């Protein structure tokens, strides 16, 4: 075997970065030995279940627990009055507001937690909640956020009346949460006044729910003798939970162990801290036994963290060639009854100011008002990075409208406005530095792959025959990997992340991170990063996350931050180890460090064939033969504070055919090109993209949480709430380009949320495009058959000649 082949063989055997390594997680999952929160059974464990409000807005006149307490097997019924002495009837939210743990005198949304029953098993608990008698006095309900700041609107938050200093701004009405702005208002307005062309489009991004297969839940276990609290829970951020629990309970963090075991999907739903967790912890402390709480599906969709609910207006000013001169975006954000958005503290509208998208826009202004309504709290990032989905939707929709007004093809108008490859790093007018990108190359690759011109020609023919065919395009840029601690923190903790790597004497590795996998395959991919950096086979590298007793502190997994932040920490920690290993290797080979070069899995003396030490040999020496003055061992920790976000991008194209009789939209083709920089595991990336596209399809085509005038949620079961099956889900075609991030140690960017963020406006673009020749510029989601049929009917397209 020649040298190059031998080196390649060693490289392949390591299964490092770039390899489609099969997942380490799968063996346990396919055999039913995954360990999810509800699988945990502790001796003496009791079950908690919630009494919930049937009303969206009502005063609680009385709560009678007697009948419930009389039921055999019931141990306790707790209400806000029971939590008051502990000062736990309200809790702080991540957004600087407070939220009732159990309703205190008033309920603010339907299904709000009013009391908790603790019983021997879930059947008795379910019986008991029916026996808790709550007397309500109904109040006027506020459902429409456009009415929130009316003079005669019912005031929701009596606890905030007269407190006009909000967490993020002055409040101008008792139902107002914040006003937040980015960019230059006057300069933007001036451009609009003088522009050749302006367009304005109102759009509603409906309230939706991440709806992971596993609902939220926990098992709280307080050891009275050692005063030690252990909580297993479905959390995407276990370390933050530990800090919050400590702050709320007064128990030192050193006596709190939070464990996120296997998690059955998160998608943002499992970022928050919910009343169910708090009452389970309180009940375990009070009763001295473990307490389990697990939501059912209706509770999940109704109460734990919705997403979106943005009423947006996008405006573009341009010249007659379609070159954008300014962007203006206005948002009315419905936050529900408590502001429990999970965003970096400084950004009450998340990263909405990435709404300039992939375009070179000289000036822009964004204005967001958040208001209260009688709906559940939330506002999490559903498979996206803090309102990026909303931002991409508003710019992509509005640029389509501009193209339509000017009669310019929607691909061409993007070509004319893209930030050019040579402009990176590019400073957006709303304050972000796009680190890298090559949008033109990616766009042409997609247009060629699908033969865009042929599609447009076919569409002309179809239109002539009276058929509805639409072509959607979305050319998005994301902002993921929160984030630099100079502008990103959660409750004051900077949004770094961490990795701790230990190389054992025999050269195997144990590594722990502050992130937590929920299906992304961290046990597989983090090992690949270490494998490449240290030359140790990924099969000999074990990855652990989620246990705050053992893992280093990190901010968790959401907003596509694991690879940009946790992956970077992993690479940097591994490089610290390799730097130490190099010193040991030099010592063993009796040469200077600088005489050594690295090759796959070993240090070689430059120019002296055969003089080499493998990482495994160095690992052994690290425990018995280190240079004078060096501490033994071979391990490292890194807390990585990213210098910038990463900015993955993609070009998505969708072709739909719409049935005029039924309004059903058939996705004939969906072509997704993603650029996430360096690709760590192509198999996993493709799987993540399939999943994200399918969630995007769900949002665009069917998901919504409608409310009636009384604030009743009309769709909180899987009968009503759209989760696509095998049958509806389209076939996905994927493609990629590689534009590495210049600041990430591996050049990698986040990826798993791009397909959700990018596909949603692409579907809308396609559906609207089917009607574009009839002067339709926008249709609100979801594009369900009934709603699309309504448009068909309105236009008279279903009438026979």
């Amino acid at each position, binding site marked *: 075997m020649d040298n190059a082949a031998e080196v390649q063989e060693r490289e392949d055997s390591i299964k490092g970065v770039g390899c489609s390594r099969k997942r380490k997680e799968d063996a346990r999952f*396919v055999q039913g030995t995954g360990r999810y929160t509800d699988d945990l059974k502790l001796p003496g464990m009791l079950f908690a279940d919630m009494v919930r409000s049937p009303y969206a807005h009502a005063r609680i006149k009385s709560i009678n627990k007697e009948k419930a307490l009389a039921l055999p097997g019931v141990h306790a019924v707790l209400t806000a009055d029971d939590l008051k002495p502990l000062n736990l009837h309200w809790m702080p939210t991540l957004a600087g507001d407070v939220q009732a743990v159990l309703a205190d005198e008033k309920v603010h949304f339907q299904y709000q937690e009013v009391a908790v029953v603790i019983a021997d098993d879930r059947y008795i608990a379910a019986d008991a909640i029916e026996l808790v008698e709550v007397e309500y006095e109904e109040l006027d309900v506020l459902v429409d956020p456009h009415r929130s700041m009316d003079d005669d609107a019912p005031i929701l938050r009596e606890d905030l009346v007269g407190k006009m200093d909000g967490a993020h701004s002055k409040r101008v009405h008792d139902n107002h949460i914040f006003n937040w702005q980015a960019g230059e208002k006057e300069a933007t307005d001036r451009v609009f006044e003088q522009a050749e062309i302006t367009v304005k489009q109102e759009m509603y991004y409906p309230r939706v729910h991440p709806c992971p297969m596993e609902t939220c839940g926990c098992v709280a276990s307080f050891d009275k003798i050692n005063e030690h609290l252990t909580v297993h829970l479905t959390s995407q951020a276990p370390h933050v939970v530990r800090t919050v629990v400590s702050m709320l309970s007064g128990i030192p963090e050193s006596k709190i162990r939070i464990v996120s075991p296997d998690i059955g999907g998160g998608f943002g739903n499992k970022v928050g801290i919910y009343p169910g967790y708090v009452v389970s912890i309180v009940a375990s402390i009070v009763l001295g036994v473990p307490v389990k709480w697990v939501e059912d599906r209706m509770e999940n969709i109704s109460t734990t963290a919705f997403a979106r609910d943005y009423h947006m207006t996008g405006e573009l000013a341009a010249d007659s060639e379609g070159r954008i001169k300014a962007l203006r975006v206005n948002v009315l954000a419905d936050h529900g009854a408590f502001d429990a958005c999970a965003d970096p503290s400084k950004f009450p509208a998340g990263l909405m100011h990435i709404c300039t998208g992939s375009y070179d826009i000289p000036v822009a202004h964004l204005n967001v008002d958040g208001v209260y309504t009688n709906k559940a709290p939330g506002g999490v990032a559903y498979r996206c990075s803090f309102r990026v989905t909303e931002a991409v939707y508003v710019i992509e929709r509005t640029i389509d409208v501009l193209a339509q007004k000017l009669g310019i093809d929607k691909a061409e108008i993007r070509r004319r406005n893209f930030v050019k490859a040579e402009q990176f790093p590019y400073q957006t007018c709303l304050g972000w530095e796009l680190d890298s990108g090559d949008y033109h190359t990616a766009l042409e690759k997609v247009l060629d792959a699908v033969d865009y011109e042929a599609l447009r020609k076919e569409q002309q023919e179809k239109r002539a025959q009276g058929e509805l065919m639409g072509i959607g395009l979305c050319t998005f840029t994301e902002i993921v990997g929160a984030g630099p601690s100079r502008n990103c923190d959660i409750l004051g903790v900077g949004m770094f992340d961490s990795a701790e790597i230990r190389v054992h004497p025999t050269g195997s590795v144990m590594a722990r991170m502050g992130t937590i996998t929920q299906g992304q395959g961290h046990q597989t991919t983090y090992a690949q990063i270490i494998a490449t950096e240290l030359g140790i086979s990924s099969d000999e590298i074990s990855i652990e996350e989620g246990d705050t007793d053992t893992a280093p502190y990190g901010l968790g997994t959401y907003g596509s931050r694991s690879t940009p932040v946790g992956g970077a920490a992993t690479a940097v920690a591994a490089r610290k180890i390799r730097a130490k290993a190099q010193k040991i290797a030099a010592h063993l080979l009796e040469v200077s460090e600088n005489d050594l070069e690295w090759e796959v899995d070993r240090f070689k003396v430059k120019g002296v064939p055969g003089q080499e030490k493998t990482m495994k040999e160095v690992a052994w020496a690290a425990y018995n033969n280190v240079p004078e003055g060096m501490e033994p061992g071979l391990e490292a920790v890194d807390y990585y504070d990213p210098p910038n976000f990463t900015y993955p991008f993609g070009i998505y194209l969708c072709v739909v055919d719409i049935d005029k009789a039924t309004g059903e939209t058939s996705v004939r083709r969906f072509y997704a090109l993603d650029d996430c920089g360096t690709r760590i595991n192509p198999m996993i990336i493709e799987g993540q993209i399939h999943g994200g596209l399918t969630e995007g399809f769900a949002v665009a085509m069917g998901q919504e949480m409608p409310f009636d005038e009384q604030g009743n949620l009309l769709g909180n079961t899987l009968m009503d709430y759209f989760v696509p099956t095998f049958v509806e889900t389209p076939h996905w075609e994927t493609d990629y380009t590689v534009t590495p991030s210049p600041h990430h140690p591996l050049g990698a960017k986040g990826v798993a949320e791009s397909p959700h963020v990018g596909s949603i406006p692409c579907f809308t673009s396609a559906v609207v495009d089917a009607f574009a020749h009839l002067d339709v510029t926008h249709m609100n989601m979801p594009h369900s058959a009934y709603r699309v049929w309504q448009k068909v009917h309105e236009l008279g397209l279903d009438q026979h000649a």
Partner: protein
Amino acid sequence: MAKQHVSFNLNGKHVDALVEPRELLVHTIRETLSLTGTHIGCESSHCGACTVDLDGKSVKSCTVLAVQADGAELKTVEGLADADGLHAVQQAFIEEHGLQCGFCTPGMLIRAYRFLQENPNPTEEEIRWGMSGNLCRCTGYQNIVKAVQTAAQTLQQA
């Protein structure tokens, strides 16, 4: 509530259990018998995470009473592998990356196991319809379809 005696064959072993008349089969399997591979996703027959094989049919054990399983032949995900190793459907899900968070996986596998006996040589469309009682939020189904195709080939060659 007076408990009822039930007995059934679970993954090849005879099992006796005392259950409440109202007890759901999924709770008996998970809580009483401590086989937690079968998951609960919706408690309303929609998601299929709780799918088990009962007398040669795929059923959603969240809407079957334990007493209805008296005398039945039951198989759960834990009963798929044998002394020779993983079942072809398990191996195929790993090979084709047909799972991510793993929560729907046991139900998917036990459904695929039955589906491929109902239709050993399915088309993609037949797979999509035949598996459509099981929901997944992670994979977008495409790789699950591939996994079922791969498993079908393996089983045909065996």
